[in-house]
């Protein structure tokens, strides 16, 4: 206990840098909203709507990437707190759409939630929120006009995010879990989001069953379909 391992210093620096960056992102978001309000630019027909959408999307991506990096770092060092509890499913999912509300509006995407309001499930809401936000963000990027988020509980919890875009490339579906191999600098896909989703899913266990994710194409909207299974 007398000497600090190098890891600890980085840990401290990481924590305060993340805190700093999140403050910056918060200020960015707030100022953008202020500018939009001041100049009446919230109108979806406005010329700069595309740019507004880009700013929203990219700053969300930065925030989400930051949270995933931090969580993965902690996971590697066995420092990631896992605090599962019971949560109402509809409220949980609705919250993720609220977080991305401005983005959905900017891109003019209709996001439908098909979840029975009387359902609740046992999971770590903070970690799962990062996953859903990330996948939803991607779905928004690739969808044309509609996204459906549905959830049901059969013998375990399943959350599905379906978009009406072009779907996941075959290569990605074939990876079947080895998402780190999907890192492709040119398309901007790092596979980080799916790798992270897989990790979080597998943290959830119940009676020797472990959580997992599935990528498909199809679903009601005939686009990309992401599923996360939580036992």
């Amino acid at each position, binding site marked *: 206990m007398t000497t600090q391992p190098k890891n600890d210093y980085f840990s401290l620096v990481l924590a305060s840098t*993340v805190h700093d960056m999140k403050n910056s992102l918060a200020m960015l978001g707030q100022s953008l909203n202020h500018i939009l309000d001041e100049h009446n630019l919230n109108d979806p027909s406005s010329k700069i709507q595309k740019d507004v959408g880009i700013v929203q999307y990219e700053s969300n991506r930065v925030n989400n990437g930051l949270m995933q990096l931090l969580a993965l770092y902690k996971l590697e060092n066995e420092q990631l*707190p896992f605090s599962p*509890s019971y949560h109402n499913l509809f*409220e949980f999912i609705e919250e993720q759409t609220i977080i991305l509300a*401005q983005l959905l509006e900017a891109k003019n995407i209709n996001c439908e939630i098909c979840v029975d309001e009387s359902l*609740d499930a046992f999971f770590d809401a903070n970690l799962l929120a990062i996953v859903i936000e990330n996948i939803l963000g991607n779905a928004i990027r690739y969808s044309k006009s509609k996204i459906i988020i549905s959830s049901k509980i059969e013998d375990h919890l399943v959350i599905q995010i379906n978009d009406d875009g072009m779907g996941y490339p075959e290569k990605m579906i074939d990876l079947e879990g080895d998402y780190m191999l999907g890192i492709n600098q040119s398309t901007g896909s790092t596979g980080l989001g799916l790798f992270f989703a897989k990790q979080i899913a597998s943290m959830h266990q*119940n009676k020797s069953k472990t959580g997992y994710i599935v990528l498909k194409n199809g679903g009601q909207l005939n686009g990309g379909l992401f599923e996360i299974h939580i036992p």
Partner: protein
Amino acid sequence: MVKYNKIKILLIEDFADYASAVISMISAMGCNHIDHVISAEAAIQKCREVTYDLILSDYNLGDGKDGQQVFEELLHFKIISDDTCFIMITAEINASMVMAALEFKPDSYLAKPFNRQLLKSRVDKSLMKKEKFKPVLRAISRKKWQEATKLYQELLGNTSLYRQELKRLQLIIFKNTKTIKECQKHLEDELDVRVTPWALAELGKIYHSLKYFDKAEGIFKKMLMEFPYTIDGYDWLAKIQIILNKPIEAQQTIEKAIKRSPKLIKRQKSLGELAEKNGDNLVMMQAYRQAVKHGKHSAFSHADEYVKLTKSLGVRLKSIRSEDRDKLINEAKTVFSQLQSKFSKSSGVQLRGAVAHAEFSAIIDDQPNVLKQVKIASDEFDKLDENIGASECIEIATSLQQLGFSELSESVLEDGVEQYFDQKEFIKQVKKITKNKNLIANAQKVNKINNRAVKLFREKKYNHALTEFSLALDIAPNNINIALNRAQATLKKYQQSKNDPDLLYKTEIILSDIDRLSSNDIRYKRYLELLRLSQLMLQNTNN
């Protein structure tokens, strides 16, 4: 629906630009009473002046207390009520959650950055939940179990929203209306459905009350293996391991908890105590260092961690002879001066600190300072206006004895014996130190008399009891328990016949003679109650 124009909100945020952003979000929600402070101290002050419906606090508040510590202080000292909603704004939710002690959990956490829609949604839900649970929580705090059961059942329609909270309440009600075995079965059934950290912990606590300590240890170990971030589990496991006489494992358990959640002073102190018992001075030193560090801005800090830190520094000094010596000596000097300034009004602490300082000075061969500190100690002892604890008394007397000041040591012991003659463990330790045979003999004598008196009191033989209490007080005139007993017996005697108001005056005199009873003492309530009763009865005789 929340009527935002009728509620008062306090924002605790040190980053000014961010604060204005949040304030404009809250205004947009319709609230027109929003106060903003930038520090913990300002927040506490403001809460004394205004009753808020909702407090939004950043977890990070710069140097000084963090949001969690503010919340704990506000609740603990009842500056806010349980009805006040508290939402913590943080960069990393799970990390902040882990820092919260079990009894002090905020109503909700909000991760930044958040937009106005999320803020509104979260505030709406938190306030609504607070409203919904107010009646049943009130019934529980008043211990009205039938009412609580009824109110709880009315809430069952909301299970999918509040399952965890409802389970928690159900267990509280069961614990107070059913047998403990029924509670055990209830939790075991819960665990058959799903293994959750909450159910495991509660079952562990039940095993503990049933004294199934091995089973309890097993359950907590299982819980911590599957859910290593359920921090209070470590505290319980360590507690049980101490009972099972496994102090080394207990120490390791608390070390694991601290690794994940280092800020709780109570935990650092437990570690310090354990490490001291296990002879692990390095860990003891580090633990008390952390306790002092985190206690700097906390209202929960005590002199204890400062004194213990100096002791461990002294022990450390005995075994090293390098440049590190100066560093440790300076650290100790700083701690001693903090003891002096932070607890300047407490003569008991100053006495203890001076003796610890004398002991430390002896270790570093500073004989003049030894004498100086013992003189200070002696002066503080002469003007002592509060009781020093039993273990502190032993600590002080032992040090003085070892330094060669046996007269002062014996005086301190005498003082302690007068207060704690009925504590077997304490008397055992006094026996080891004292050279005054009469001291122990007197302790045993007054203990016997007091026990006789209490027995007579219970048999309602108040006259005899009073005679015995007087005898006891002759030997131990400053003992508070005897005085309180004597006062109570006098009141009872009055109540028997109600024709001698003189007894009431006597009671008042006995109570006013009581010296050194601080308002923090657990006996203070009893003292106030007896005073109130005697005054009430006096009033009635005058009518």
